[in-house]
C-alpha cells in the first residue's frame, strides 16, 4: 500500500490516492475475515480437546486442514505436559471431573456396541448395546463424553 502511495505521489498522480486507499481497505477487510474465520476454527478445535478427548473422530479430522491437525497435536502436548507438572508425582488430569463427582461408582447404560472393556481389578465387561453396568466413574467419563455410554441417574 505504501509503495503504491509513494509511486503515485512521485508520478504526480496524487489524485489516485483515494482509490488506492479504498482498494487497500478492501484487502484489509478480506484479510480480517479470513483470519477471524481461521481463528474461530482453532477455538472450536481447542474446545474439542476438552469436550471430546485427545483422539478426534475420523469424520472431524477429515474436515481439518493439515496445519490444524498439527496445531491440535501441539495443543494436546502442551496440555499433557502441564497436567504432568501439577498435582505431585502422577500429575493431575484436569479434563476429568468437569462436574463435581457425587460418588465413586456410577450407573451407566450402553448406547452402542463397544466390545470388551477392562476395569482396574482385571475384570472384563462386555459393552453391548442397552446393557447396564455399575462402574467406576473415572473409567466411564471419556466414554460418556463420546456418546458410547449414558449416565443413568437414579
Amino acid at each position, binding site marked *: 500500500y505504501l509503495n503504491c502511495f509513494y509511486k503515485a505521489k512521485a508520478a504526480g498522480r496524487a489524485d489516485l490516492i483515494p482509490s488506492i486507499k479504498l482498494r487497500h481497505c*478492501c484487502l*484489509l477487510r478480506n484479510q480480517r475475515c479470513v*483470519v477471524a474465520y481461521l481463528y474461530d476454527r482453532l477455538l472450536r478445535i481447542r474446545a474439542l480437546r476438552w469436550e471430546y478427548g485427545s483422539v478426534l473422530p475420523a*469424520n472431524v479430522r477429515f474436515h481439518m486442514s493439515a496445519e490444524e491437525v498439527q496445531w491440535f497435536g501441539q495443543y494436546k502436548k502442551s496440555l499433557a505436559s502441564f497436567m504432568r507438572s501439577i498435582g505431585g508425582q502422577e500429575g493431575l488430569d484436569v479434563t476429568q471431573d468437569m462436574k463435581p463427582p457425587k460418588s465413586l461408582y456410577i450407573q451407566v447404560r450402553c448406547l452402542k456396541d463397544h466390545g470388551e472393556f477392562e476395569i482396574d481389578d482385571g475384570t472384563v465387561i462386555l459393552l453391548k448395546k442397552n446393557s447396564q453396568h455399575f462402574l467406576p466413574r473415572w473409567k466411564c467419563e471419556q466414554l*460418556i463424553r463420546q456418546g458410547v455410554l449414558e449416565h443413568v441417574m437414579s
Partner: protein
Amino acid sequence: MDTPSYFPVPPGVGMEENFLSLDDILLSQERLPVRTECVFPRLGFLEKSSDSQDIPEGTKMELPLWLCKGLYEKKRKVLSVELPKIYKEGWRTVFTADPNVVDLHKMGPYYYGLGSQMLHFDSPENPDIANALLQTFIGRFRRTMDSSQNAYNEDTSVLVGRLDCLEKVLFRSGQNGLNGFQCWEKGQAAQLTASSLVLNYRKRKLVDVQS
C-alpha cells in the same frame, strides 16, 4: 447442561471493535449513507447508477461501515458520513420517550453497536447520540433482565423478537444462569453428558436418514 469450552471472541466495548470478533465483523457490514468529498478515479464501476469511469465528488452512495471507517479522515476531504435516521433527532426523542416500546431488532439489529461506531465520524450531534444510546439501554435493561430470569422452559420468541443483538446476548446469559440453577436444583448438575459434538452429529445423521 454442558460446561462450555468454546469461547468465541466477544464484540468490542463502546467505540472499539475486536479485530477477531465475528460479531463485530457482521456489525461492520451495515451500510451507511455517505457523500464523497473527493474524486475516486477509475472506481466508477462501484457506482451502478452512473456510467462514468470515476466516482465524482459529491456522489451520494451507501458504503459499509468498515469502508467508511477506513476512508474517513477528520479534515473531511474524503468522505462525509450521514447519520442513519434512527440516530437523528426525531428518532432519538422517540427512543428516550419510551424506550420499552421500540422494536430494536427492526431498527437495524445492531442499534447500540452501530450507534457506538457512528461516534467515529465527528458529527456535532455525537454527545446527543451517545446519551440517547445510554438512556435507551438503561430504560430497557430492567425488563430484559427480569424476563430472562423468569422465563423458564417456555417459548421466548415474543420476548426476544424486539431486542437488539447486545440485549439478546444479555438475555441468553440470563437464561443460561436460570437454566443452570434449575438444573442444579433438580440434581442434574452432577450428571455426566455426551459432548455437544456427538449430540449434533447424531442429530445430523437422523436428518440424513429421513431425507
